[in-house]
C-alpha cells in the first residue's frame, strides 16, 4: 500500500503563469495521478461577443490571449468573411501571413525562454528575452503596438508595409535568424538541458493521436499535422515551407520543434516580402453579414485553433464558439505527467506551452431539453458570491 501524498500546484505557483490548478497525487517524488481544475480565468468572452457588434468582436477576440492574439483575430475574421462569402485581396492575405508568422516567432522565442526558466537556466531566459525585444520592435514598426497587434479587420488588414519598413524588417529577421540558430545550438549541446528534457514527458505517437493533442505537442511525437498544410488558409499554399516533426516524443523534441518552426517562420516572412503583390489591403463590406454559420481553422503557435460563428442577420453575432489549442492538450498532459518526478512537473507542463486564459470556455447544457446557453460575467459573479456565502454558513 503506497502512501499517497497530495500536492496542489496552482492556482498560485511560480511554474503556473495564469490561474490554473493541477492536483498531483505523489508517492514520494513520483507522480501517480494528476487532476486538472479549470475555471479560474473564465471571463465570459463568448457571451460578451453576443452583446457587441461584429467589429467590436475582433478586439474582444484579440484579448482572449495576450500572446496568441493574432491567430484569434485572424480566425475570427476568416470565419466572418466566410459568412460574407468574400475573398480578401491578395496583398491583405500576404500581410496576414506576415503578422501571423511574426506572432509565431514571438511566441516561440518567449516559450524557449520560459523553458529555460522552468528548468532553472535563468541565463538562457535572459538572453532569449533580450532578442525577443527585436521581434516586438518589428511589430511596433508595422502595427503600432508591441504585442497586441490589432491588425486584422473584417475584409482585410488595416496597416500596410511601406518600402522603408521592409529594409528594417529584413535586417531584424537576419539578426533573429542568427540568434535562433545559436539558441538551437545551445539546446543541442548543453548537457544539463538535455539531462532535464530528454526522455521526460514522453507521449507516444498513438497516445498523442488518441488524446487529440495539437500543435508542437503533436508534432514532437512524429505526427504530420498542421492546419497550414491540411487546410491552407490565407494563401499559405503559395508559400513553400516545411512541416517540422521530431520522433523523440519528449520535452526535448517539442523544444526542437519550436526552434525549427521559428526558423521556418523567418523563411516564410522573407518569401512573403519577396513575393508581395500590390493592391488594396481591405474590401469594404456591409455592416452586418448575411445569416449563416461558418467555421475557420488556423494554426496558432500552440496548435490548431477553431472559431465557429453563427449569424442571424442582426448587428450582433448570434453565437461565437472558440476551441483553443491548450484545452485540447490538457488530457495529453495528464497522460504525459504520470510516472515522472516532481522535478519534471514544470518542464512537462511548460512543454505544451500552456495558455490558460485561452482555455476557459463554459457551456451549460440542459440534458432534458437539449438547450444550451452561456452566462455573462456578471451572472457568473452573482453565482459565485451566492455559492461562497452558502458555504460559509
Amino acid at each position, binding site marked *: 500500500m503506497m502512501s499517497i501524498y497530495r500536492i496542489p500546484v496552482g492556482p498560485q505557483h511560480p511554474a503556473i503563469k495564469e490561474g490554473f490548478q493541477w492536483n498531483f497525487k505523489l508517492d514520494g517524488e513520483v507522480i501517480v495521478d494528476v487532476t486538472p481544475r479549470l475555471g479560474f480565468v473564465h471571463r465570459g468572452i463568448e457571451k460578451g461577443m453576443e452583446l457587441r457588434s461584429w467589429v467590436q468582436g475582433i478586439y474582444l477576440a484579440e484579448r482572449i490571449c495576450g500572446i496568441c492574439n493574432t491567430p484569434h483575430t485572424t480566425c475570427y475574421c476568416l470565419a466572418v468573411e466566410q459568412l460574407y462569402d468574400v475573398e480578401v485581396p491578395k496583398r491583405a492575405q500576404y500581410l496576414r501571413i506576415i503578422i501571423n508568422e511574426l506572432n509565431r516567432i514571438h511566441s516561440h522565442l518567449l516559450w524557449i525562454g520560459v523553458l529555460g526558466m522552468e528548468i532553472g537556466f*535563468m541565463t538562457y531566459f535572459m538572453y532569449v528575452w533580450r532578442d525577443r525585444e527585436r521581434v516586438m520592435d518589428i511589430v511596433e514598426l508595422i502595427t503600432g503596438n508591441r504585442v497586441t497587434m490589432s491588425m486584422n479587420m473584417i475584409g482585410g488588414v488595416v496597416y500596410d508595409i511601406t518600402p522603408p519598413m521592409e529594409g528594417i524588417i529584413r535586417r531584424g529577421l537576419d539578426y533573429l535568424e542568427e540568434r535562433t540558430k545559436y539558441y538551437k545550438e545551445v539546446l543541442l549541446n548543453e548537457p544539463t538541458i538535455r539531462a532535464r528534457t530528454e526522455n521526460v514527458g514522453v507521449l507516444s505517437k498513438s497516445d498523442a493521436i488518441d488524446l487529440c493533442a495539437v500543435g508542437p505537442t503533436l508534432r514532437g511525437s512524429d505526427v504530420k499535422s498542421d492546419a497550414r498544410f491540411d487546410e491552407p488558409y490565407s494563401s499559405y499554399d503559395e508559400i513553400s515551407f516545411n512541416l517540422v516533426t521530431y520522433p523523440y516524443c519528449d520535452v526535448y523534441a517539442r523544444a526542437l520543434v519550436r526552434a525549427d518552426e521559428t526558423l521556418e517562420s523567418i523563411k516564410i516572412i522573407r518569401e512573403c516580402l519577396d513575393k508581395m503583390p500590390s493592391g488594396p489591403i481591405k474590401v469594404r463590406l456591409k455592416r452586418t453579414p448575411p445569416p449563416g454559420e461558418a467555421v475557420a481553422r488556423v494554426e496558432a503557435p500552440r496548435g490548431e485553433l477553431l472559431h465557429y460563428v453563427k449569424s442571424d442577420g442582426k448587428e450582433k453575432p448570434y453565437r461565437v464558439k472558440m476551441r483553443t489549442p491548450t484545452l485540447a492538450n490538457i488530457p495529453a498532459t495528464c497522460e504525459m505527467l504520470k510516472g515522472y518526478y516532481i522535478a519534471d512537473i514544470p518542464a512537462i507542463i511548460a512543454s505544451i506551452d500552456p495558455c490558460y486564459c485561452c482555455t476557459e470556455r463554459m457551456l451549460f447544457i440542459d440534458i432534458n431539453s437539449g438547450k444550451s446557453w452561456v452566462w455573462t460575467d456578471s451572472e457568473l459573479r452573482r453565482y459565485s458570491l451566492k455559492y461562497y456565502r452558502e458555504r460559509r454558513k
Partner: protein
Amino acid sequence: MMNVLYYLFRVLIYPGFLFISALAFVFEWIDRKAHAHFQNRIGPLYAGPHGFLQPLADFIKLMAKEDFTPTWANPVFFNITPVLAATLPVFASFYIPFTGMPVLPPFEGDLVLVLTLTTFFTITAFLAGWFSSNRFSSVGAIRVVLQFLGYEIPMFISLGSAAIAAGSLSITKIANSQVIPFAILQPLGFAIYIIALQAELEKIPFDIPEAESEIVAGWLTEFAGRKLAFFRLSEDLRLVLGAGLATAVFLGGGSGAILPPIVWFLIKMVIVVLIATSLRTVFARLKIDQVVRGAWKYLLPLALLQLLITKILLVVM
C-alpha cells in the same frame, strides 16, 4: 586587561564577526553584479555606488517585515533554526586564517571541526524545512538531506588529500605549507571541491532544495521577515566560509609577494567567488536523482583516485 580587549576586538570586529558579515555582504554584491553582467544586464544599481549597499538594504528591509509563525509549525525549531543557521558559519569561519592567523587559536583537527559545523548546518536546514508544516517545505527538507548524501563524502576526501599532502589537519598549517598551491598540484581535488561547494551552497546546477519553479522556495518557504533575513545572511556567510576554506587549503592562503597576506587572501577568495558565479550562470538545474547518482558514480571515484595519487606521490618523493 589589554589581552582581553585585544581578543574581544579580534573576535567581534576584525577579523571576527563584523568583518566576516561585511565580507558576506560584499561577496553577495560581487556575485549579483557578476551574474547580471554575464547575462547582459546591470544588476543592483541605485543603492549606494553601483548598488554596493544593495545586500545591506535587502537585509534591513527583511528585518522590518512581518514575522510570524504558522499555527502548526513547531515553535522551538522554527525560531531557533534561523539563529543557528547564521551563527554556525561564523563560528566555523573563526578558524580560517584570513590574516595569516585565525581568530581562535588553531589546533590539529580544526579542519574536522569546520567540516562538522557545515554538517550541522545541513541538519539545521532539514529541521527548518521539516518543522514548517508545509508540503513544499518537507519536500525541500528531504532534498537537502538527499543532496548532502551525494556531495559530502567527495568533499571531505578532496580536502583530506590536501591535508595528507600538507601532513596536518590544521587549516592554518595547510595554508602555510603550500610552496606551490595545491590547486596546481592536485587539480582534480580542487575541481571536486569546487563542484561540492556549489552543491553545499545550493547554487545552480545544484539548487534543488530551493528550486523556485518547482517547490516555491523549498525548505525556506514558510520563513518571512527577520527569520528570512537570517537565512539569507547565512547563505552569504557560507559562501565566505566555503571560499575561505578553498583559498586556505587549495590556493595557498595569504601567501604572495609585496601585499599584506589579508589582501592576497581576499583576492583569492574573490577568484573562487567568480568561479562559483560563472558555474551558477552557465548551467540549468539538475534533478535530485541525477545529482546523487552522478556524485556516487563520478565524484566519489575521482576523489578516491586523487587520494590514491597523493599517497603514491608522497611515498615516492
